């Protein structure tokens, strides 16, 4: 029996975080949660995550800040961005820096699962 992939959800909105976690767990992913980018950086996530589902706008460090920080650290963990804003500039910035997908809320389970699957290779 193989270990399920570990997906980190980094999202400041508790409701959204809970919904994402439930959905991913329903599809048998191992899910860990961080309420901020800083919390992720301070924890073991960068070393152990197979994929990050990352919110763009958060208090303190934004999702893009986290993506840059991971780059600087040389971490190659794939990122799926989720956002309620979805402006084109942010999207391009995220994709240019290697994001696997940029999902606009609200998105369906199929969109999320497809993006995560792509991230996991």
């Amino acid at each position: 029996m193989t270990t399920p992939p570990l997906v980190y959800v980094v999202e400041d909105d508790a409701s959204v975080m809970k919904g994402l976690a439930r959905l991913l767990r329903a599809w048998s992913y191992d899910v860990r949660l961080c309420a901020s980018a800083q919390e992720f950086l301070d924890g073991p996530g960068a070393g152990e995550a197979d994929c990050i589902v990352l919110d763009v706008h958060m208090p303190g460090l934004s999702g893009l800040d986290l993506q840059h920080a991971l780059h600087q650290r040389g971490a190659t963990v794939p990122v799926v961005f989720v956002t309620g804003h979805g402006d084109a500039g942010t999207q391009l910035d995220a994709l240019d820096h290697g994001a696997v997908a940029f999902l606009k809320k609200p998105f369906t389970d199929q969109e999320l699962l497809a993006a995560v699957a792509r991230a996991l290779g």
Partner: protein
Amino acid sequence: MDETHTQTVEEGFLSAADRDDLLRTIGDKLPKAFFYRVLHEADGRMRFTYLSQRVVEVLGVPAEVLFAEPAVMLDLMVEADRQRFLMAMERALTETMTLDVVVRVRRFDGELRWCHIRSATRNIEAHRQVCEGVVLDVTDQKRVEDQLVESQTRNQAILSALPDLMFVMSRDGVYLDYHARDMTMLLVPPEQFIGRHMNDVLPADLAALLVPKLRKVCESGVMAVAEYSLDMPAGPSHFEARIVPCGPDRVLAIIRDTSEGKRAQHEAQHNRLELARASRMTMLGEIAVSLAHELNQPLAAILNNAQAAERLIATDRATLLDTREILGDIASDSQRAGQVIWRLRELLAQSVPERAPLSLNQLVHDVEPLLRSELLTRQTTWSVDLAEDLPDARGDRIQILQVLLNLVLNGMDAMNDLPPEERRLSIQTRQEDGTVRVSVRDTGVGIAPEHAAKLFEPFFTTKPSGLGMGLRICASIVTAHGGRIWADSSCGRGAVFHFTLPMAHPS
């Protein structure tokens, strides 16, 4: 007793000499009058044979002058009146009748006097006649009459120029008299209301409003004012009635048609509301993306939760506990989305402003969900410092929410050029000097001294795309609430915008 007196006179108790003495005494004592007797000869000459003492008081000429030269009397008369007098005298002599004429006399001292000349004509022998009578100085009476006429003329002029309706009514509400510049101003023709009670003329609710006021005005002597609407033949109109006492048990009601003023007032109020609403829409447009985000968050959570539940059920892993928890979260996220929509709707709706007790602390809480996403996007730190036990203010929730939103968005705009870690916005509420104060502080560029005085003027803006109406509308709203709005700033060190509102229940 009367009978005895009458009898005494009829019996001729006085002798002819006594009677003459009596008449002379009366003639000499009459104030501003004199008796005279003048003899008209057959050849047309005339001469005074008697003049009582007061002739000098009335004409300013001693009796001796007139005895010597009777024509002086005619010379004293104003030209136009002299002709009239001569014609009247001619007729009195010809027809042996009473002379009764009023003439103006210019005395030697220049004073003009009105004299009422009244005499009887008697034939004493062929072609000789005597006129005996009295000359009364009626100048004072004439002056009063003139003043009365002048006053009446003036009153008539004022009345005819006044646009108001006037009614004289008994204290019980019966119409006694009226004045109307134009009959179309009346609800019904005069014959249908004069002498009738207000209850029989006016709609019942209006009569019920006005009748007690008439009684109160009569009792207190103090003016009462009533405003009312009435369906006139030309259409619905608005009136203001001022009711004042007018003699015993009567009142005068002055009715002014205020429809035009009311219409203008409503129109101005409507325009103000429209302007405020347009400003709210512009403001919401500026944060539309953030508002969409605020709506998308709960929608995303709902969708994710629902699809997770679907998956769990499809794979037979759904426990009752999980399902109940998921449904609970879906319900609360739906409420959250609903609240965002509800707040948007109330900000966009054109509602009639109301003055109600208003918790400004709650208002700060209410504004937060609308701005949360915008604060995140603009990487602005937000803090609140709310006074405990803050008394309610009195105001319109939506309008004050608009003011608060506007000040917060302005604060964020002022910090655009700062590094994100320096962008701090704080809101404070306090009770102060019988008012409730809200202060919005930013750490932005501050207000240049030359701009400070113009902040609340229309079309003043320092933003490249601003219209300069936001703060002007805030000031208009706060002032209309009986509050005050002002700003403090040290240039380059941020600004604080404060506004106060009166307390709902002043202590």
